[in-house]
């Protein structure tokens, strides 16, 4: 076995013996995905809704039947008056109310225009939008069938109104966001802490007194985290695809290749932090405040960058997670190929090279004692 792999093996020992940390490292992405995911999907399934049918004709009966048979909705209240709508919401029972206007069928076939109103609970904007989207889709399907049969320009116009929260965020954001967060946490935080621990324990002093280039030790430390991170990516993608049903529209290989690039970027950031930090605590705060917070704020994961003031928008450009976030969204959600993300990829590559270069330069071949 080569010397390098002996070093990697030693790092694996360290990691495997610390069962608690290992459990967190491997379990964190899974729990993150499940927490973020089920906060969204659990409520969308079998959501309780109320129906207020002013028309009570054949068409509304058919539509209601379709809504009821959908896995997303469970009709709990049949209301008879509009004054009951607010009461139902306030009881907290229902997430959505669907109101069919009087003479629905008559209007549909005669004036070719019938209206149905969706009133959704906007306290959880994601759920609200999703429910409205699902409801609209059912009506659109029904409309398409009518068009197909009768070839007539019948139209049902869904009218949507969100109550409690007018502004809505998009879903599908969290899978790329969690990927960036987890990789950064595992790679940057764990590598920098592991390296600085050698300084703190004094083992770095013994290694420095040997002919070994100490940078070798540092590089070998990052290899196990590379593997753990690849495992994390695969578990995130697996869970989000099969359980949360987030699509992977583009190439899976490209997605994994870009993720590995981002892992290396995060590792280089970890190296950079460890070349400055002298204690494990400062390494930890360095990565959390210097890398993790900006990822939450400026990657576009939680707050849309377009809505930020210009200086913030400019600042966001030096956050590597922002570029990774764009790449992952482009491949997974938009299904774009290599040609449309090469710029972001290049930025990550250059950033990584720069970080490694600075870390090597800063890495001291002697003890740093003030």
């Amino acid at each position, binding site marked *: 076995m080569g010397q390098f792999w002996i070093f990697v093996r030693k790092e694996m020992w360290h990691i495997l013996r610390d069962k608690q940390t290992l459990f967190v490292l491997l379990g964190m992405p899974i729990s993150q995905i499940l927490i973020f995911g089920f906060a969204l999907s659990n409520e969308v399934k079998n959501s309780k809704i109320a129906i207020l049918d002013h028309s009570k004709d054949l068409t509304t009966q058919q539509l209601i039947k379709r809504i009821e048979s959908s896995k997303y909705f469970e009709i709990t209240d049949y209301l008879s008056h509009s004054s009951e709508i607010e009461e139902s919401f306030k009881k907290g029972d229902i997430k959505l109310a669907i109101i069919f206007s009087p003479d629905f069928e008559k209007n549909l076939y005669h004036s070719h225009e019938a209206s149905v109103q969706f009133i959704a609970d906007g306290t959880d904007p994601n759920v609200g939008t999703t429910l409205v989207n699902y409801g609209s889709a059912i009506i659109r399907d029904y409309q398409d069938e009518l068009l197909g049969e009768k070839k007539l320009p019948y139209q049902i116009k869904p009218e949507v109104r969100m109550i409690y929260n007018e502004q809505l965020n998009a879903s599908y954001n969290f899978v790329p966001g969690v990927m960036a967060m987890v990789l950064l946490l595992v790679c940057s935080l764990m590598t920098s802490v592991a390296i600085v621990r050698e300084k703190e*324990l004094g083992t770095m002093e013994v290694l420095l*007194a040997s002919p070994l280039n100490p940078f070798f030790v540092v590089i070998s430390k990052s290899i196990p985290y590379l593997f753990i991170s690849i495992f994390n990516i695969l578990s995130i993608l697996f869970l989000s695809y099969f359980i949360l049903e987030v699509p992977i529209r583009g190439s899976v290989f490209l997605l994994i290749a870009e993720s590995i690039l981002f892992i290396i970027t995060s590792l280089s950031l970890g190296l950079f932090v460890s070349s400055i930090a002298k204690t494990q605590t400062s390494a930890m705060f360095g990565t959390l405040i210097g890398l993790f917070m900006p990822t939450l704020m400026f990657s576009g994961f939680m707050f849309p960058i377009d809505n930020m003031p210009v200086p913030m928008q400019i600042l966001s450009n030096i956050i590597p997670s922002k570029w990774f976030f764009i790449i992952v969204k482009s491949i997974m959600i938009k299904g774009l190929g290599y040609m449309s993300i090469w710029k972001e990829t290049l930025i990550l590559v250059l950033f990584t090279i720069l970080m490694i270069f600075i870390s090597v330069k800063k890495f001291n071949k*002697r003890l740093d004692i003030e």
Partner: protein
Amino acid sequence: MATISIQCQHIKKSYTLKKNKIIALDDINLEVYKSEIFGLIGPDGAGKTSLIRILASLILPDSGSAKVEECDVIHDFEKLRTKIGYMPGRFSLYQDLTVQENLEFFASVFNTTVQDNYHLINDIYKQIEVFKFRTAGALSGGMKQKLALCCALIHSPSILFLDEPTTGVDAVSRIEFWEMLTELKRKGMTIFVSTPYMDEASLCDRIALMQSGKILSVSSPSQVKQQYSGTLWSLQSIHMYHLMQALKKWSRVDSAFSFGESIHVGISEQNISEIEIKNYLLQNGISEINIQRIEPTVEDCFMQLMDKN
């Protein structure tokens, strides 16, 4: 003349702490010969660790030069590091790895194997071999020291730097540790060891007494004792406190220090007699005393040198 292993000239090193300049090493000059045990003796803060770190190329001196095994500690540090074994003052092995894993790891650091140099560590390793599957963190203090020594020896270095290997170790483990060093010396190794325990000086071939960044003296333990100026007396009485008070106010006494159950009294006059001392004490109301002229210990010499500086 024995061949030289370490030579250092005019080494200076200082640190700044809150705008205060602290001089760690002040013009250190030393020569250490091959296959000798050289002891750096002095209390905490004397500069022992700084000097060892400079010689092991871990930190740079502010000025001066040093050669270890013909390698300059500043310029040839890469070559130097292949020739030295180093054991820092703090226990610096991986506590979560087993005894065997630690040893194998440090062998691989030097691109060698445990088998290749087993003959060197055999005597020491067999004392801890029963615990080879135990993590280093679960070993007792004495065992940790033995493992650390094995790890520092595994690449068969020409010279071994040991920074306070016996600090905080009990008297029995200290004796055992010095027996191991003597055995290594017999095998031809040069050993550069620091210690705050003055009684360990007699186990070294030559010693440097250090205090406040300065070397007070370099010689063999017996020469150090010969350099003691004046006469030294050991006094005992049942009234130790009064005895000490009386001695301290006598102008002919240079020093009076308690040494266990007796007081060591230094008097610079070569021809002062036992009777004179007894008479003085009698005048001060101390009659029953036990007095004896003695050879100085290294600790007596150290305190005399401290006083002169």
